[in-house]
């Protein structure tokens, strides 16, 4: 089911929670709504589900206006942050709830419940009480409960934020796998960019109720539309482009030319400040580097070491792989040499 949001605005009193949101979601697509807390992503999700009355705008499903339909008529199923499992029911009763409401045959309900519990890797727990399950298991029940009614739309409201890191990774793979298997149109709300990138087809980045950018994970990461998106999507090195000396330095490194066409710095009459964006992986640390800076911080996380370099008053973060074997010295306060690879992926963004 393709969904189209047209000029949606939602308010709580005077507070504008969502401001003129437009979005088209393809049939079978998984969209991530990404942003910091309070950015309006959950409000947008609940609006789509029909759990909040629509203030302004319209929601179309397969070109049919569903804005006025009550939630139970929208054929959407939601997976909640704290799971929202019914505490007075067993696992099986929870999963069967939606079917029972829709007056399914008991035998069919039983079969479907078994099937779906297998799918979410929870076989044999049918008669457990909800309180006896671990967080991960509860999350699976919530997923099963949503899936079993075969909804046209799956809505996820930060479903993994209460789980441990490792569990989170395995759960998101499961969700992605099942979503792709059933090809259910899905909307996934999260504030974790890694989660958004790994789980979705496209990402919608939001801030203060406004959609900042819509795009493939690679697009929003590599070609952020503005500074906010750049920084939200991972570690970003951003050099302000109004300081001519440094730009000249950068231009001197010879690799600038290719990206120049993207954004003619020199010709910019635009008053708006612009930044040159490059990611830590674009920085190559090595004795032969063109630039020199001072190490102000470094930390090793497994095979990757991140070095923060003071480069003429700017902090540049670089990544070194296999630091222990690389022979590079990152002692704090020492000088270090590096190159910036500006080919291709570097990007100029408005400040």
């Amino acid at each position, binding site marked *: 089911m393709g969904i189209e949001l047209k000029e949606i605005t939602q308010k709580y009193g005077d507070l504008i929670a969502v401001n003129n949101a437009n979005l088209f979601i393809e049939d079978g697509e998984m969209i991530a709504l990404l942003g910091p807390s309070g950015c309006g992503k959950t409000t947008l999700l609940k609006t789509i589900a029909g759990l909040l009355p629509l203030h302004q705008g319209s929601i179309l499903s397969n070109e049919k206006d569903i804005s006025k339909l009550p939630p139970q008529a929208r054929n959407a199923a939601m997976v909640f942050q704290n799971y929202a499992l019914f505490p007075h029911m067993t696992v099986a009763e929870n999963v069967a709830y939606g079917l029972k409401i829709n007056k399914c045959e008991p035998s069919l309900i039983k079969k479907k419940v078994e099937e779906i519990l297998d799918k979410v890797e929870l076989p044999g727990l049918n008669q457990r009480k909800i309180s006896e399950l671990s967080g991960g298991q509860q999350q699976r029940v919530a997923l099963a409960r949503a899936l079993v009614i075969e909804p046209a739309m799956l809505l996820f409201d930060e479903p993994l934020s209460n789980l441990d890191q490792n569990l989170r990774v395995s759960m998101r793979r499961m969700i992605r796998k099942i979503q792709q298997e059933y090809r259910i149109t899905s909307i996934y709300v999260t504030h974790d960019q890694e989660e958004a990138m790994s789980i979705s087809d496209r990402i919608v980045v939001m801030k203060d109720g406004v959609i900042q950018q819509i795009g493939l994970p690679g697009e929003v990461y590599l070609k952020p539309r503005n500074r906010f998106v750049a920084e939200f999507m991972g570690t970003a090195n951003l050099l302000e482009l109004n300081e001519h000396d440094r730009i000249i330095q950068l231009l001197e490194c010879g690799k600038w030319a290719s990206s120049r066409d993207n954004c003619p710095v020199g010709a910019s009459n635009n008053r708006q400040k612009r930044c040159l964006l490059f990611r830590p992986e674009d920085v190559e640390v090595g004795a032969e580097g063109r630039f020199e800076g001072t190490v102000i911080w470094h930390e090793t996380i497994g095979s990757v070491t991140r070095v923060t370099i003071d480069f003429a008053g700017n902090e540049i973060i670089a*990544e070194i792989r296999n630091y222990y074997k690389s022979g590079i010295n990152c002692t704090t306060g020492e000088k270090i040499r590096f190159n910036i690879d500006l080919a291709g992926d570097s990007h100029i963004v408005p400040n």
Partner: protein
Amino acid sequence: MLLELKGITKLFDKDNGIRDFYLTVAEREFITLLGPSGCGKTTTLNLIGGFLQPDRGEIWIEGRDITHLPPEKRPVSTVFQSYALFPHLNVLENVAYGIRFYRKEKKKQALSLAREYINIVRLEGYEKSKVGNLSGGQQQRVALARAMATNPRILLLDEPLSNLDASLRQSLREELKSLQRQLGITMIFVTHDQSEALSLSDRIVVMDKGYAIQIGTPREIYFYPISDYVAGFIGKSNILTRVGETIMVRPEDIKMAKNAQGDYTISSIIFMGQHTEYIISAEDTTLEVVVVGKENSKFMQGDRVNVTITHQLGQTGQGDRFVVPELK
């Protein structure tokens, strides 16, 4: 040794608690207790803090048995998860609290000392703020200042960063580490986040179900995990069985090269920004490969590739301690 845990056992029930726990901590060391929730890491911290009494074993600090000393008399201080700041006191009063009661300073002196700690954590100007009005990061700093203000011999930190946004977490991590280095405070840090543990610690204690599975430097833990549990918990790992031996390979230690006749096919690509995850499969094996940086653009789904392993564990002669359990 500054701190010694000698065979501590504390069981709440069959599955919860810690068992036979030994640990020594040197002056100025940064130790991390790492493990999934329920592994006993917070229990350990609470035992050191004095909030729990061990069933068995002793706790010594600076050569003195403090096993039965109440928390208010121990030279340790805790930064609690979600901070546990006193909501009815302002920032200054929170920080002064321990100075008054632990250091037994007069109120005036306590407040002026507290100001200096507030300066250390760079919260000047917030002295009179209610703690409820501060941001998460600021609350975190208040909690840190409050704990440091008693001049503890050891600072205990219980997942202090877990309630913060990813980017804030990163910057506070740096501040914490530099504070520890410069002030030379001994810290014991609890987390379930492996990257926090790896980046901050002098040594890591990996815990599971109440046992300390492995104690070592981040490097030891990462490169020479003692078991598949440790390997799996810290970083990702591929377990490979070759003729007669089983090895573990980190996803980033596999190099792919495009080759039309390659053994492996790329079945899935997940772009993660700084790195890209690939699932590649041959007839009988599936490997997870991580490509960092820009090489990612070379590979497309369906491409055939060959792989080279640049670093592996469990090979004879490497001296690695990796012990592989029975594989299917």
